[in-house]
């Protein structure tokens, strides 16, 4: 491998979860620098998302675009991200300016990269600049070297694939052997052509004896990586992963970990049982409650949905009896996988491959295209991974164009083929063309927000119509906010989750707030005040998980039996107490739940400032498509007319229903639009924002964020 730049360094030792070192690499100038962080930096920004936000706030401007040299690709774990004694560690954050939204995006991902980066001496890695030639970065904590090397060239098929290139590289640089002392991130060919390219976190699974992949899937982080000319980063450390955070109080960590593992062992088998089924178990529950995003989120159920329920994947694909945690010590072990699946379509047809997944989101994305074939789910999963594109944005974008086609906004002249719901052939063709930047795939690779403009221009020219009027129609069912496609849940019947998506700072991804069942099914948020309070509390606690290097599922999807006796069972506070014990034992702090919520609020406000600076921070950017709040078209209303009519009487304040169904549909839309605006008002007030969604100056100051840039920004915003 041709090394183009290399430095020697002395890896800093982890102490209390931190090394206080940031690795900065400029691929343009090929400078490599190890920066010592100020002692109070961690107190203010915690880790993970916090470190990424601070880097982006300081190092980029409102003019920075995803492919600007100064854009920063940050990868950061947190102080709790490496402890096999506590379940659900190993997570790290990839943060950057997104090709989709133009503002900060971060995506959390499991695997071994974050822990090994920490053991190699770094709390975070920040990559800037653009390399003229394709390169890889090698961080070797054992050899004490950091290098930029020319990307090796194997063969075209291997080189193009995000999975295959990373896999080969991991073996190649370790004398042809896999090892769990190495991990990598990689981006593939799809990221060169689509805005929603992803980054894989690749690690060696000693049980399956192969490289496995988890994904930082949302928002185009892989597209940023490839725009920088970077194909992969490999990190190596042979230091022991046991006590990897080097906690201040080892006994305290062990006690907290034991308590958490007991909760998981006792409660998960009687609840979702993620350890056996993975997240595919969610499909059935979503379908049952009209939340499964069938045909571009038109219908929440389908008679065919059962073909995609968990037992189908468990019986036919998943390898059973293999504990599948994505990091050591996880007893929730939801990262399911399949071996020797024969591909029947696409350029690799006939090959037998290993597949990591599917997760619920992949199943939902395929149902979103109106397809209910489990074999296609597996193949879609593998191809998206190998190309390195986000399963969610890919599926939602194709589904949007399918609906455009079916509603007459697109024709074969535009797409080159019949692009209809339920057509595996059409979906598959669009997938491969997108990854290859060919044909209609060039348009599909731009995502829904840009796709709407393209369709409107075409349709308006052909029909001598107003582009604005066409856009207004497309906005009803183009499922994106801030430029990011919705993840795979229908929100029409949960006002709280409409806010969970619309007000999410990164765009409609559920890791900021997922309130559908709490609101729609469990009915724990009956008032606007309850919903607004939840839309403040849940994003803050979820931010903390993204800052500390932890998986959220153990807290949020396994209800501690003791929570039933608390005032707010959905917050699962008895489990959170174990997390706080783990934090304090690791870092030596004495923090309370309120303290960590305050730490998270600082990060939340900083992210809001970045959104304001990038033009995505005001009320206008929090508006959601009509379909996210109501049946956008009459066919959707008709599919549940009885339910909607009942809703108008019970929740919509309508004493006498209009005589005609079309009038009732119109009235329903009016009520739902009104409710969403009232929700925005209530949430902004709860968060201390103006009615335009701008944080008050005193809040920004309270969290120590009112620097000169923030002052100027708020001046410009009229605050």
């Amino acid at each position, binding site marked *: 491998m041709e090394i183009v730049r290399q430095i020697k360094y002395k890896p800093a030792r982890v102490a209390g979860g931190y090394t206080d070192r940031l690795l900065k690499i400029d691929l343009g100038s090929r400078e490599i620098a190890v920066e010592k962080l100020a002692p109070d930096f961690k107190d203010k920004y915690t880790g993970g998302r916090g470190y990424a936000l601070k880097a982006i706030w300081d190092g980029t401007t409102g003019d920075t675009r995803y492919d600007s040299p100064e854009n920063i690709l940050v990868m950061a774990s947190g102080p709790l991200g490496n402890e096999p004694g506590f379940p659900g560690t190993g997570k790290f954050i990839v943060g950057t300016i997104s090709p989709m939204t133009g503002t900060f995006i971060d995506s959390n991902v499991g695997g071994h990269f974050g822990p090994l980066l920490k053991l190699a001496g770094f709390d975070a890695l920040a990559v800037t600049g653009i390399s003229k030639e394709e390169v890889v970065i090698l961080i070797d904590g054992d050899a004490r070297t950091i290098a930029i090397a020319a990307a090796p060239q194997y063969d075209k098929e291997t080189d193009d694939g995000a999975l295959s290139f990373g896999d080969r590289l991991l073996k190649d640089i370790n004398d042809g052997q896999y090892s769990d002392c190495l991990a990598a991130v990689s981006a593939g060919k799809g990221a060169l052509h689509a805005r929603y390219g992803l980054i894989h976190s690749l690690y060696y699974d000693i049980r399956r004896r192969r490289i496995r992949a988890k994904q930082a899937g949302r928002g185009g982080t892989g597209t940023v990586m490839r725009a920088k000319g970077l194909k992969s980063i490999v990190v190596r450390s042979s230091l022991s992963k046991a006590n990897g955070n080097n906690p201040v109080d080892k006994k305290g960590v062990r006690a907290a970990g034991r308590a958490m593992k007991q909760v998981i062992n006792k409660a998960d*088998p*009687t*609840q*979702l*049982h993620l350890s*056996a*089924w993975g*997240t595919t*178990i*969610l499909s*059935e*529950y979503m379908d*049952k*409650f009209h939340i499964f995003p069938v045909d571009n989120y038109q219908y929440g159920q389908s008679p065919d949905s059962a073909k995609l329920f*968990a*037992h189908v994947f468990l019986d036919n694909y998943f390898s059973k009896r293999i504990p599948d945690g994505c990091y050591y010590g996880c007893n929730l072990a939801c990262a399911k996988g399949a071996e020797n699946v024969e591909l029947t379509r696409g350029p690799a047809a006939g090959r037998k491959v290993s597949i990591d997944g599917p997760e*619920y989101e992949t199943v939902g994305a395929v149902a979103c295209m109106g397809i209910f074939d489990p074999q296609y789910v597996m193949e879609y999963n593998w191809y998206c991974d190998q190309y390195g594109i986000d399963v969610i944005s890919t599926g939602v974008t194709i589904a949007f164009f399918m609906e455009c086609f079916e509603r007459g906004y697109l024709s074969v002249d535009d797409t080159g083929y019949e692009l209809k719901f339920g057509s595996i052939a059409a979906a598959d063709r669009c997938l491969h063309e997108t990854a290859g930047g060919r044909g209609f795939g060039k348009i599909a690779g731009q995502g829904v927000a840009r796709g709407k403009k393209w369709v409107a221009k075409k349709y308006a020219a052909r029909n001598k119509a107003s582009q604005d009027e066409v856009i207004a129609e497309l906005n009803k069912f183009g499922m994106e906010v801030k430029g990011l496609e919705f993840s795979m*849940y229908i929100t029409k019947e949960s006002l709280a989750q409409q806010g969970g998506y619309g007000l999410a700072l990164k765009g409609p991804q*559920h*890791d900021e707030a*997922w*309130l*559908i*069942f*709490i609101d729609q*099914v*469990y*009915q724990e948020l009956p008032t606007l005040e309850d919903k607004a309070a939840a839309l403040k509390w849940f994003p803050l606690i979820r931010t903390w998980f993204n800052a500390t290097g932890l998986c*959220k*599922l153990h807290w*949020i*999807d*396994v*209800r501690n*039996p003791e929570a*039933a006796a608390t005032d707010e069972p*959905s917050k*699962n506070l008895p489990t959170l107490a174990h997390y706080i014990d783990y934090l304090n034992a690791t870092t030596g702090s004495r923090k309370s739940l309120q303290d960590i919520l305050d730490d998270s609020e600082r990060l939340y406000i900083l992210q809001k400032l970045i959104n304001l600076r990038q033009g995505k921070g005001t009320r206008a950017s929090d508006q959601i498509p009509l379909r996210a709040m109501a049946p956008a078209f009459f066919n959707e209303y008709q599919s549940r007319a009885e339910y909607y009519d009942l809703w108008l009487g019970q929740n919509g304040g309508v004493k006498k229903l209009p005589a005609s169904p079309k009038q009732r549909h119109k009235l329903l839309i009016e009520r739902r639009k009104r409710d969403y605006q009232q929700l925005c008002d209530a949430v902004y007030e709860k968060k201390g924002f103006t009615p335009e969604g701008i944080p008050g100056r005193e809040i920004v100051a309270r969290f120590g964020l009112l620097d000169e840039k923030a002052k100027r920004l708020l001046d410009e915003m009229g605050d």
Partner: protein
Amino acid sequence: MIEFLGTQRTLAGADSIEMPIITRSRVDDVLEYVRNKYPQLKLDKDTALVVVNQQLASRDQVLKADDIISFLPFISGG
């Protein structure tokens, strides 16, 4: 009808069962019936979430003959 979802279906070995509804049967009665018939479901009598016709039901809700009853795990999103 009592409907089994997800893991429950595997543990119970059935998609659904019928339970004879006698006059003024309540949700609590159904829960007790299923707990006795399928102890392997481990439905906690204090914390189980019971849904009748897709609406969360209180334990003393009186049931009708054509009600569809199911038991939910806690789902709070990934």
